[in-house]
């Protein structure tokens, strides 16, 4: 390997192995993720170890640290405390709350106990009333942050507002799903870098190179095939990395991702001006599309729900992205096909359009890589 390649690898690996260690000083919050299901709700409740130690004492050997062993030893005590701090009722009466597995989970201010929680309510419950009592006795500024879906705003319970209604059933689910679809559409339609990348790849779809010049491709099916190949490859690639990244399986630093996305647009535009990759443009769309998925995932990074909700959320968001993208392709396709015989398009439209894309994306690249502001806000 050349030294340059080694340097690139070292940088990439360095970026990948960054770990976050410092924990914030923060006021006390617990995080309750609840998902409605028939006859109740289930989810996870994250409570800070530090708060648990203040409330019930879990540092048994008083060495100022909480080990996994100490946490496990206090499990029954913790669940009893939690059970006495959260009450759910439906129209037909009190719900039965049970706790499942206890794990550990890291939030910005430290490690929390993560308790799987299930609530079973009598009758056909359509809504549920929560009363929250955790920690208020020892911390008057404690908050219970309750989330029922990624799209719905969280409910914040405080010492003076301890109760809240949660609606169950499909209204939350469908509305939340639709909200995610809209978020995805919004994201692609305002994500000019993704759109420019796709546009740059599609501009020459109705043309082919013959002895250094562009000539029109006659048949519509051939054009359509080319467009489909590029769009599908881009979609598959960005869906793949979006999923991996949203599931926290992969994480790349945002500045690297944003810079690399800008660079991918530069490459796509350059390829139109100095064509290297022609029939294999779909492959370029795939390789570079992997990067764009990381960019999409940034929007989803704050969302933090159980496996079922996560899959639904991700699917909704991705669907929204694809619908938005399809709309743009449907607008572009007639234009590209209609103009394919035009000399002006071949000689001027394509090169000038690509040059414009190249210019914009180069500015983005410089801005993002060096953290400057030139054109964007």
């Amino acid at each position, binding site marked *: 390997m050349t030294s340059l390649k080694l340097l690139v690898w070292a940088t*990439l690996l360095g970026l990948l*192995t960054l770990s976050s260690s410092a924990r914030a000083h923060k006021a006390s919050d617990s995080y309750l993720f609840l998902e409605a299901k028939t006859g109740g709700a289930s989810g996870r409740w994250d409570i800070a*170890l530090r708060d648990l130690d203040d409330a019930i004492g879990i540092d048994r050997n008083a060495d*100022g640290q909480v080990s996994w062993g100490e946490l496990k030893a206090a499990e029954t005590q913790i669940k009893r405390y939690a059970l006495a701090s959260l009450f759910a009722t439906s129209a037909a009466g009190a719900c039965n709350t049970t706790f499942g597995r206890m794990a550990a989970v890291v939030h910005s201010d430290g490690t929390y106990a993560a308790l799987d929680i299930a609530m079973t309510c009598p009758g056909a419950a359509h809504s549920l009333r929560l009363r929250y009592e955790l920690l208020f006795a020892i*911390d*008057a500024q404690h908050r219970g942050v309750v989330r029922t879906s990624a799209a719905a705003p969280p409910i914040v319970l405080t010492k003076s507002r301890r109760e809240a209604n949660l609606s169950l059933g499909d209204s939350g689910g469908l509305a939340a799903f639709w909200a995610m679809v809209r978020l995805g559409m919004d994201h692609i339609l305002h994500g000019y870098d993704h759109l420019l990348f796709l546009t740059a790849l599609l501009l020459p779809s109705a043309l082919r190179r013959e002895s250094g010049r562009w000539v029109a491709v006659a048949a519509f099916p051939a054009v359509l095939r080319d467009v489909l190949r590029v769009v599908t490859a881009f979609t598959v690639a960005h869906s793949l990395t979006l999923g*991996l990244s949203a599931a926290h399986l992969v994480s790349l630093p945002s500045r690297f991702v944003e810079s690399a996305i800008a660079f991918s647009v530069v490459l796509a535009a350059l390829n139109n001006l100095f064509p290297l990759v022609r029939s294999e443009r779909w*492959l370029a769309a795939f390789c570079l599309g992997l990067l764009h998925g990381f960019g999409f995932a940034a929007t989803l990074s704050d969302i933090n729900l159980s496996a079922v909700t996560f899959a639904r959320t991700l699917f909704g968001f991705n669907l929204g992205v694809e619908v938005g993208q399809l709309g743009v392709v449907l607008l572009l396709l007639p234009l590209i096909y209609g103009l394919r015989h035009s000399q002006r398009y071949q000689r001027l439209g394509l090169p000038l359009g690509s040059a414009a894309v190249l210019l914009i994306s180069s500015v983005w690249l410089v801005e993002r890589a060096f953290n400057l502001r030139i054109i964007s806000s």
Partner: protein
Amino acid sequence: MAIVRDAAEHAAPGRMTRARHVLFGGGALLVVVGLVAVFSPSPTRSEPFLPASPNQILEHLPERVAGRAPIRAAGASLEPIRDPLLAERLAREDIRSYQITADPRYLGHAEARLSAFWDVADAPVPILVLRAKIRASNHDFEPAIRDLGTALAKAPDDSQALFERASILTVLGRYAEAVKDCAALAPQVSELFALGCSGAVRGATGEARGAALDLQAALVRARGLSPADAGWAASLIGELLVHAGDAKQAERWLTSALASTPQDAYTLGVLTDLLLDLQRPAEVVKLLSPFERIDALLLRLAIAEQQLNLPQAEQHRAQLAERFADARLRGSAVHRREEARFELSLRGNPERALELAVANFGVQREAWDVRLLLAAALAAKKPALAGEAREFAERAAVQDPAISSLLHALDGGQR
């Protein structure tokens, strides 16, 4: 570029040329990077895990501040403390822990200790003063001023209540009222504290240098000061000298304040702001590396790291974003000043910074609040929105080199 053009012109159709190798090599590299990323342990957050060993340490609890009684709930409920003397003593310890560590959980504990008296309008004077301190720390300034008014109606000479109210009124920019409280305080306390009270107001109204000189003289005369009080006085003198534009002397005083109280977050903030203004980010990194836990200091650390192009800048920026998001989630607004500065200096988002700076200026009006609003309005090219801060600065005759140069720049932009 030369290679690319060359390859494009001479390549035979359908053959993989050198340049295409490069392009596909790049693509393949990305795929490999993706695979490496998948199989490498990434810093996952918010994903529950089951530790492999019972010995694995999950959390380091904060060191017990000496003398602070642990707080315990026997079940979900804990009987509120009815004894006002006990409640006062315990809450005072919690507030002291908060002042030492800047950890807001202690404020919640202090409030809980006072819960039996929290909504009692007519609570004992010492409890009213503590309640006001907690409220002011949460930026509930008006209720805090009301509590102190009630306390002073009962005990007009209470020095703590007077000092507390003068400090809050200074933060709010209500200088005439603050001056009155400082005048009422003067006969009750030592010369140093009396001058400290009035000095903060004078520093905000164009008399920073005179106030600093008076305090220096009083400090020489003062006898038997505790390190905490000596640190407080030196820190205030340093801050006044920053406003007076005497960077060299300011740095000397702030450094000596840190010698008395090395962990003091407020002094560290003032000193590192000065160093950032003096383009000495490397020293900021050195000073603040042990204080990443404190949001306001992590902010300055990240700004310094960004100026030095250090790799940690990105990670710290992400951490700050997460902390601000957490604060927003719980509906807390105490971070507005820091968040405005974050958006302005670290995110390059002057529009958002301006929104936050405007909202922040509606709540507090210290030099940094003025400065941020002016800077954000300038960066967002909306000088009209700085009008309020400009008027305020001119009315109070605010003296501060950074504010003066921002006002100058805004004038230039309007002409």
